[in-house]
């Protein structure tokens, strides 16, 4: 049995994680293909249907301009999930590179990189996120357009504040792995340091990184929604889940559905991703007795 099959077998034992996988897969399919099936435009204004509750014409109701919330939710979900995945990729790439360099080179390089990691861990993240977006938003909008520019900015900034746990994990893994016999054997056979790292050490240190990466997706979705909720994320005409909540919060007493659907979507996405991370942690830890 290959290690991946074994991990999959162990993952399926974690009932909640296994179930979460299906819920999350459904959400991703819905936001990917949903707009093709439910082809109502996200910005079709209809003042005769303002702030309506769920009905057959509008399964999730409408907002204060009579725009259909289901199509806005599906569109926003694309952005929220894409931001989560892209920010996770940034965090993992930066974290693995820094962790690997620190882990393979001893002495001052390691010490300097770990000081940098600790410094980033002590930074007040949300205030800095807000500050960076405030300072750079307009320039990037001009360069790359309002939607893509803000997307790149948010992904890079969230990623830049999430790499530290990954770097620490990778470094710790490298410290124990580089002394193991199989790496020593590779070294004795004349493998260069990059080859030792890429072929032997890195693949064996990926387990905890995968778990951390999964949880980073959830953290990035929350971070993006938070920025949008503060009115600092995507422009108002692009409905992300956080932005929908931000717009809905002033109508809480007369249009509850408007806030509940996007809030529940964020919650469900984050909850399922956290459960999948928990399941992966169990599945990828060979010491854990099931």
């Amino acid at each position, binding site marked *: 049995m290959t290690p991946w099959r074994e991990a999959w077998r162990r993952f399926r034992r974690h009932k909640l994680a296994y179930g979460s996988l299906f819920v999350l897969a459904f959400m991703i399919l819905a936001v990917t293909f949903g707009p093709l099936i439910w082809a109502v435009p996200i910005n079709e204004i209809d003042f005769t249907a303002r702030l309506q509750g769920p009905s057959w014409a509008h399964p999730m109701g409408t907002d204060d301009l009579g725009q259909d919330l289901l199509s806005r939710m599906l569109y926003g979900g694309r952005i929220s999930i894409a931001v989560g995945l892209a920010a996770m990729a940034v965090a993992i790439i930066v974290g693995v590179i820094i962790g690997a360099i620190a882990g393979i080179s001893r002495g001052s390089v390691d010490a300097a990189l770990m000081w940098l990691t*600790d410094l980033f861990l002590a930074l*007040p993240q949300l*205030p800095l996120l807000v500050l*960076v977006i*405030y*300072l*750079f938003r307009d320039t990037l909008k001009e360069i790359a357009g309002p939607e893509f520019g803000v997307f790149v900015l948010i992904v890079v900034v969230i990623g830049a504040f999430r790499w530290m746990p990954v770097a620490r994990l990778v470094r710790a893994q490298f410290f124990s792995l580089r002394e193991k016999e199989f790496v020593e054997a590779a070294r004795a056979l004349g493998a260069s340091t990059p080859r030792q790292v890429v072929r032997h050490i890195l693949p064996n240190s990926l387990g905890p990184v995968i778990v951390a990466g999964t949880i980073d997706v959830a953290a990035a979705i929350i971070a993006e929604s938070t920025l949008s909720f503060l009115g600092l994320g995507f422009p108002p005409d692009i409905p992300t889940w956080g932005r929908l909540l931000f717009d809905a919060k002033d109508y809480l007493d007369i249009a509850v559905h408007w806030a509940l659907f996007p809030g529940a979507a*964020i919650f469900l996405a984050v909850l399922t991703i*956290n459960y999948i991370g928990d399941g992966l942690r169990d599945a990828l830890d060979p010491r854990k007795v099931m």
Partner: protein
Amino acid sequence: MSQYLLRRLLIALPSLLGISVVLFVVLALAPGDPFEELATNPNIPPEVRENIRIAFGLDDPIYIRYFRWLTAMLQGDWGFSFASRINVDDLILQRVGVTLLIIGSSQIVALAIALPVGVYAAARPYSIFDQIANTLAFIGFSLPPFFTGLLLILLFSIQLDWLPFVYRADIEATGWAFYWEHIKQAIMPVLVLGIFQGASWTRYVRSAVLDMIRLEYVTTARAKGLRERGVIIKHVVRNAMIPVVTLVALQMPAVFGGAIITEQIFRIPGIGSLLITAVLANDTPVIMAVTFVFAILVILFNLLADIIYGWLDPRITYR
């Protein structure tokens, strides 16, 4: 102890300097002029504007500007708010108290949830209580604070009409009524932060206690015939708290992030909502100062965690 404290304070200084460098670099790299407010004001003629730039030294090399900014910050000269027309340090002093009050009480609430639940769940691993606590913890830290806030407003302010959802600094009542009004309006913000923190701490406490409870010294204590209660509280929990304190200290930046959102939802006049207002009003000196204050607070709380650490683990003091 005092020597340990002094050493910790000295270690905190470089991180504070590092954070100030990061902040300043971000501001220096930013496109456009941070003092645009003066630059775009039509009442100021171009030659005066140029004189202002020279007077403030905006065309000097970046490291000179950094040192000038740093010395000004250290001397308590934090600049002048464009929007509020008062000194930034006065503005922050007016507001930092509420923020600390809300954060402090929410941490106490979080601790009051996490400690008993986590310890009890770990003492009976995989029992029904453990499973329910685990599920609730997962739900608790998957609920983003802004959504919890809206749900609480929906339930307690709109449906039940028990609690006010706008935080007011000017309450007219006196005596007991005054305190009661203050407590009432603080309940929801404190709960929002407390639930989020409490949920993740519960998991830390549980796994730390679970790691400790398997060790041999615990078996020894039980074999001596000590009561289970005493074993758990005196022998296990104290040692289990050491890794928990580290994790809690690492979470401090997230707590301050949560505080910003909470203040924004409930319109609490703290420094978090000040930051958002300042960003929306392009009030650069206030933004810089508030971010720096948040950095100082994070480091102060880390310091506090280290002191608790030294108290929990006497070996650390002599290192």
